[in-house]
């Protein structure tokens, strides 16, 4: 029970400490090409988006329209060999799997699934399809996934499109609750993915 109180206090403390960062949304104006995820990956959104100040990882960044839990567009810009997709925050007890340059599309989908399962502690996640696709004018892949966060129970659907270029992984994912939000914002997200250039 001490742990619960501690958790609650920690939650408040973290909330206070990170509040400015969390509140740090920046407008991404439509129609203006912009480099994302500290990389050479360029996209041109067709609607205004909000960029989250806090990055999920060194080479990642997230955008949203209605709030990250309702729609989440995340860019992974050049994940290098032997690095994780996002921040390895529990490196000692729950380390994340690492990307390898030799990975094929199905391996990357599995890396993504495993990273999610470990980081959000869920066993309800599946890759529902993997297919070839063109990403930023290069041969790449596209996969779709569904997952539920334990204790939250909202069913979410997601799509990922990417390619391995020069041994580095470039990936854009879009995910949102199955109910209403996925369909409502899918078009806006897809146009960002389609505009990707490297």
């Amino acid at each position: 029970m001490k742990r619960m109180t501690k958790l609650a206090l920690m939650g408040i403390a973290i909330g206070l400490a990170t509040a400015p960062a969390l509140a740090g949304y920046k407008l991404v104006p439509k129609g203006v090409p912009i480099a994302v995820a500290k990389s050479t990956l360029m996209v041109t959104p067709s609607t205004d988006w909000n960029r989250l100040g806090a990055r999920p990882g060194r080479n990642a960044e997230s955008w949203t329209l209605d709030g990250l839990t309702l729609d989440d567009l995340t860019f992974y810009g050049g994940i290098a060999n032997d690095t994780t997709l996002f921040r390895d925050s529990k490196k000692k007890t729950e380390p994340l799997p690492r990307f390898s340059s030799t990975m094929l599309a199905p391996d990357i989908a599995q890396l993504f699934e495993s990273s999610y399962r470990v980081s959000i502690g869920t066993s309800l996640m599946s890759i529902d399809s993997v297919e070839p696709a063109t990403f930023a004018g290069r041969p790449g892949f596209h996969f779709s996934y569904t997952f539920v966060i334990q204790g939250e129970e909202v069913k979410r659907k997601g799509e990922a499109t990417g390619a391995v270029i020069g041994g580095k992984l470039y990936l854009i994912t879009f995910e949102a609750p199955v109910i209403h939000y996925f369909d409502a914002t899918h078009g806006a997200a897809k146009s960002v993915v389609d505009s990707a250039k490297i």
Partner: protein
Amino acid sequence: MMRRLALGAAAMSMMIGEIAPAQTVSSPVIAATAEPAVIAAPPYQPQDKDERGLWMQMDEQERQLRNSNFVIRDQALNDYVRGVFCRVVGPRCSEIRVYVIRTAYFNANIAPNGMMQIWSGLLLRTRNEAQLAAVLAHEYVHYQNHHSLMLFREARGRAAGAAWLSMFGLVGALLAIGQISAIFQFSRAQEADADAESVGLIARAGYDPREVPKIWEQFRAEADATAAARGTKSRKDKNGGLFASHPPTAERVTALTAEAKKFSLSDKWQTGDAPYRAALEASWSSFIDDQVKLNDFGGTEFLIAYLARDGWTPNLNYARGELYRARGRPDDLKAATGFYRDAANASGGPVEAWRGLGLSLLRTGDQPGGQAALKTYLERKPDASDKSMIAMLAGGTQ
């Protein structure tokens, strides 16, 4: 559906504090036989307002848990677990609802109202019916001896009751299943009590009590294996996380071994290896898949190797292949091709072994071999969810 309705009714009767009708004394017909009349006690009901309050809070949690996506609804598996539980604790098993939860970690817990959770990661790790019975008995003892209520009263005695109660408000906010269990962290004395009584319960039910300390020996060995593969220090004696309130595992092994020795050896003791394996067969692939995807190479390899103690089955070889391919170092990929080959060539081997074999071969530079294996996969599983990608990798026209 029927089961859900029945559960709903049970929860509701508890919510309104209705006393369930006492089970009747055996009928005259039965009494006329030579068998002694058995007077079954009515189901336990909360006795005072503290206990009623606790139950009401947990009934609300249970209402949410019951609808959770994580509850495994497989009737056969649920019936099996309940059967083992009732064999161990007797008629009072009807007071408990056991929920099997799909989550890859090793845990079980019980709330004061009789809501018990058994996680799928635990089912993957207990190795026979006796060990499962011991876990179920351990949780039951917490319920039977009102450990939560005792803790609550103790906390209130220290004028901390308000703080304790306020945590129930947090449950609603945090809701995570693991965190619900954190509320019911029993004291070490209570855990030791539950351990000791559980050994007696399973021995009297005809299970081998020497299996109980093995659960913790396995836990320690797995923690060592996890640490060795990660190059970190083993957490087997770390008493944090899920086991923060439990006695250290080494101590538990010693105490449980001593407890088991109190019973004179019986040749009628069962471990229930075969029925346990049979009951888990249908779920096993998804449980091991959950485990492989936890990125715990050492712990998973340890688990798979134990399960293979009587020989490597195609499914075990496939699981090992998946584990090695997921880590994906050059040596791992070579090893994985061997495991996949064994799985694919065996009769009754999973068709996915061809997929794993093909992908591993492609990554080790054997393009013709890899493409051939992937083609075999597609021939045998034409409706695969990743067929268009695999077809392209297999050199098809996609």
